């Protein structure tokens, strides 16, 4: 039971971080479908940093440096979307899809090159970061507490405050709803959209790191992040672009994802005698069903996906 809680929380943390990233981007008016690719790149940045950090570093320092690394890598990668979509008015869905293709592929190439440079016979895509990863967890009884759970909660609270209580949030949302209105009162729509995309890059990269450190101490980059970027999008839509709802939606999806890891611990579920794959599919199936019912009355920002053109009235 504690294991279920632990896995639910860590998966929910991943989803909440990435979905909030998408939420910021979309509120600024840019659809970020490339979260999956951003997660992989962020995870790669974090994994490599952990691999090369000196083993005797202070735990708090490790956490800080690693988080910084994955956030910066995620932001740089998301900048591709920002420049293409905001500066050059590219189709946001296409650029996002390109990021999703580019991210995992680039990660595989990079990791293989690094592994081969160390050992000419090693062509694997695995990065091991066992030592550094220990800094992120601490045991409370049998519950393995991951500091990222706290980080996710803090980000969730901060997002709510930023979006609804600050000038920045008000202006950001205006740019996603009615950029012409924002422009007419002197708000720089382009700057706000860059801000939205960069925040999504930061949170997406962080989410990627949390995903690959959830329970394991090495990662095969061939696997990418197994569609978590898309699940996060589903969480964002199910949460109707509102932080609190996104938090609840993330918990629900996290629970279903966790079931596949721990269902053997529940007699009821084992008695059902379902194959393991059914539980693995569960979050994705749920997301399909949820989207079918929710997207009809969706409260998506009105101007998202439309490049802002100052000349058009």
């Amino acid at each position: 039971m504690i294991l279920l809680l632990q896995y639910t929380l860590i998966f929910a943390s991943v989803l909440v971080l990435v979905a909030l990233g998408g939420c910021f981007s979309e509120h600024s008016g840019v659809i970020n479908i490339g979260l999956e690719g951003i997660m992989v790149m962020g995870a790669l940045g974090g994994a490599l940093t952990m691999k090369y950090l000196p083993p005797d570093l202070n735990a708090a320092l490790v956490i800080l440096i690693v988080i910084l690394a994955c956030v910066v890598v995620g932001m740089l990668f998301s900048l591709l979307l920002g420049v293409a979509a905001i500066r050059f008015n590219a189709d946001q869905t296409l650029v996002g899809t390109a990021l999703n293709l580019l991210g995992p592929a680039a990660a595989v190439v990079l990791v293989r090159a690094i592994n081969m440079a160390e050992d000419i016979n090693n062509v694997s895509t695995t990065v091991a970061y066992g030592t550094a990863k220990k800094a992120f967890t601490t045991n409370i009884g049998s519950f393995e507490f991951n500091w990222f759970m706290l980080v996710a909660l803090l980000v969730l609270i901060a997002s709510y405050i930023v979006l609804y209580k600050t000038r920045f949030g008000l202006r950001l949302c205006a740019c996603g709803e009615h950029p012409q209105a924002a422009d007419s009162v002197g708000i720089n729509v382009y700057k706000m959209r860059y801000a939205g995309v960069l925040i999504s890059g930061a949170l997406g990269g962080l989410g990627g790191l949390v995903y690959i450190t959830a329970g394991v101490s090495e990662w095969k980059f061939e696997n990418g992040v197994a569609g978590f970027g898309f699940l996060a999008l589903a969480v964002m839509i199910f949460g109707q672009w509102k932080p609190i709802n996104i938090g609840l939606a993330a918990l629900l999806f996290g629970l279903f994802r966790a079931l596949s890891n721990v269902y053997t611990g529940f007699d009821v579920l084992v008695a059902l005698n379902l194959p393991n794959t059914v539980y693995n599919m569960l979050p994705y199936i749920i997301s399909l069903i949820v989207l079918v019912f929710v997207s009809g009355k969706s409260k998506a920002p009105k101007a998202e996906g439309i490049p802002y053109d100052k000349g058009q009235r």
Partner: protein
Amino acid sequence: MEQYAIEMLHITKKFPGIIANDDITLQLKKGEIHALLGENGAGKSTLMSVLFGLYQLEEGEIRKDGQTVTIHDPNDANALGIGMVHQHFKLVECFSVLDNIILGAETTRGGFLQKAEARKKVMALSEQYGLSVDPDAIIEDITVGMQQRTEILKMLYRDNEILIFDEPTAVLTPQEIQELMTIMKNLAAEGKSILFITHKLAEIMQVADRCTVLRKGKYIGTVDIKDSTPESLSAMMVGRDVNFVVEKAPVELGDVVLDVQHMTVASKHHKNNAVNDVSFQVRRGEIVCIAGIDGNGQTELVYGLSGLEPLKGGKITMNGVDITHLPIRKRLTNGMSHIPEDRHKHGLVLDYTLEDNIVLQRYFEPEFTSPMGFLKRKNIRSYAERLIEQYDVRSGQGPITKARSMSGGNQQKAIIAREIDKNPELLIAVQPTRGLDVGAIEYIHKQLVAQRDAGKGVLLVSLELDEVMNVSDRILVLYEGEIVGEFDPKQVSVEELGLYMAGSKRKEAQDRAN
């Protein structure tokens, strides 16, 4: 010397192929309501864009309180105290009234919004100028009138001294227009200077102190309203005398071309029928006008006739053929022409070229499509060119102009060219002059009368009482989806008609369906 709040002196602004503003001078006195009058395309929008720094002027200068200023972008304009209510409101629909007002001019402490202070200021302003709004209401839930008051409060919240209203009455009901006029007078009395862009003469006569007239990018003159008449203003605007009265020969009634019996159309908004058991006829050689206040079933009535909506009951006969269940294409090829209410939604494909829009009703004919299904571009081009010439449709690049880039009046002319050139038996025109200027209105009225004189049946749906009285031969008043009265425009007063339109009087039409 007279004190001017803002002066635009000898402004010239050129675009490729056109001089949008040619040596235009506009001087706005402190505390006055100054109307800027001109037809579509006269250069009013360009002039305002220059004032707001959206365009940079090429010649001339702008002065504020006698001092020369340069305006590079809207922020500069705002800093000089210039604010504008745009024709299409710049409001974020899912935000509250208060959020919209403070957006861009937020009071913050450490980045956090201080809404309580803002609310106090908004409430004080709203009280001072009689602008009643609910600060917590969401924009998409409130009336157009309240949205406009929100826009006005936005300007006042920024302490703007020069208030520009761009065609503010186009979207309002008659009562809301009266309220706005009162508000504008209050604002001027409190020392605000108001620039009022419009082409509605009656409103200028009612509120403005002075009026500057533009025509085709040129400055025509500035006049005092107390020395002017609507006729003199419109002559300045159009460049010739305009006939407010439509000249018509007496009616020569022919056969019945449209016969509607017990027509009923369901409503999309409520449970009652939008059109309830309506029967009438249109004969050749007459203009029958459906009058009524917006939303009393006019739209649905026309949708039923044109086939855009199915009927719930009743029967429509056109030229003796039962068309009740005919598809739209069949109705249109059988002699019905339809000038739709919403020219952007049903009249034009905005991203198509002008020529493609012109041929939209006929592209399938052998003249324009080969048996293999390929379009005959050459024929389409020459056909479009003929209509453009004949109906004087003006556009930047002729047949290949994108419809979206054309002015409203010319878009409407293109539709009228297309629909009339089909040589219809029955012409249905729904609010054909909505949003157009005096010159274009006169032109369209002439076309309608010409169709009637050529022995066609014309069904006109109009919300403008002037139009109803001037153009029609017979008036049917629609109230809550039913015909509540039938009149001869020569024998009824506007006031009488108004009572029927408001539903306070009704009579059975005597010779309905005779």
